């Protein structure tokens, strides 16, 4: 289990409910990223964490979206009062550090479906 791990792999919920998505990055990776991928589309950046620095939240689409990273490792992405347009695959990635060009390694994502 050396890769990025995400859970759950699939989540179906009703409109208006809150959801939490979890990401376990590769051990030792200090940078963690969340992206969103809609059907047949590329990846859309959401948020980025690096060590103890303030996260870059510039990609979060609304204030219903938030994320935390506890202890510099596991991260949780929370979507409150879900809407149908939130349906997508949410992907997490980690890298050893940022800057200078480091490939990001992705998990297999959480497929979120809002009914």
């Amino acid at each position, binding site marked *: 289990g050396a890769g990025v791990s995400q859970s759950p792999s699939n989540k179906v919920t009703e409109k208006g409910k809150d959801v939490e998505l979890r990401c376990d990055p590769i051990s030792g990776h200090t940078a963690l990223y969340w992206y969103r991928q809609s059907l047949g*589309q590329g990846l859309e950046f959401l948020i980025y964490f690096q060590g103890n620095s303030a996260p870059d939240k510039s990609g979060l689409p609304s204030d219903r979206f938030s994320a935390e990273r506890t202890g510099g490792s596991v991260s949780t992405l929370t979507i409150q009062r879900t809407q149908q347009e939130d349906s997508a695959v949410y992907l997490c990635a980690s890298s050893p550090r940022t800057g200078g060009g480091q490939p*990001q390694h992705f998990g*297999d994502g959480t497929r979120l479906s809002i009914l």
Partner: protein
Amino acid sequence: GESVGLHLPTLSVQEGDNSIINCAYSNSASDYFIWYKQESGKGPQFIIDIRSNMDKRQGQRVTVLLNKTVKHLSLQIAATQPGDSAVYFCAEKGYGGATNKLIFGTGTLLAVQP
């Protein structure tokens, strides 16, 4: 604006042929580029990367070419195999105040015919 796009949304090739997937990027200040392969139901898998101080980089059966003059990136796959069938994304490292995110193109579907 920020954009990384692909010329061909679908590419169909015969097994054993070489494949070339193209990508255009918009910002000449971008200094790092990555190609990812994504199979159905999986996350993107890193293939190869290249920095802007290089024109070419080779991996196992793959080569990435960077033409900064026309802001063009390509991925060449030699002797394409059925297992290469997937969606391929190019990505550009963000620039300016957003240097930590990757900007992805919309992807090219590579279909390898046996």
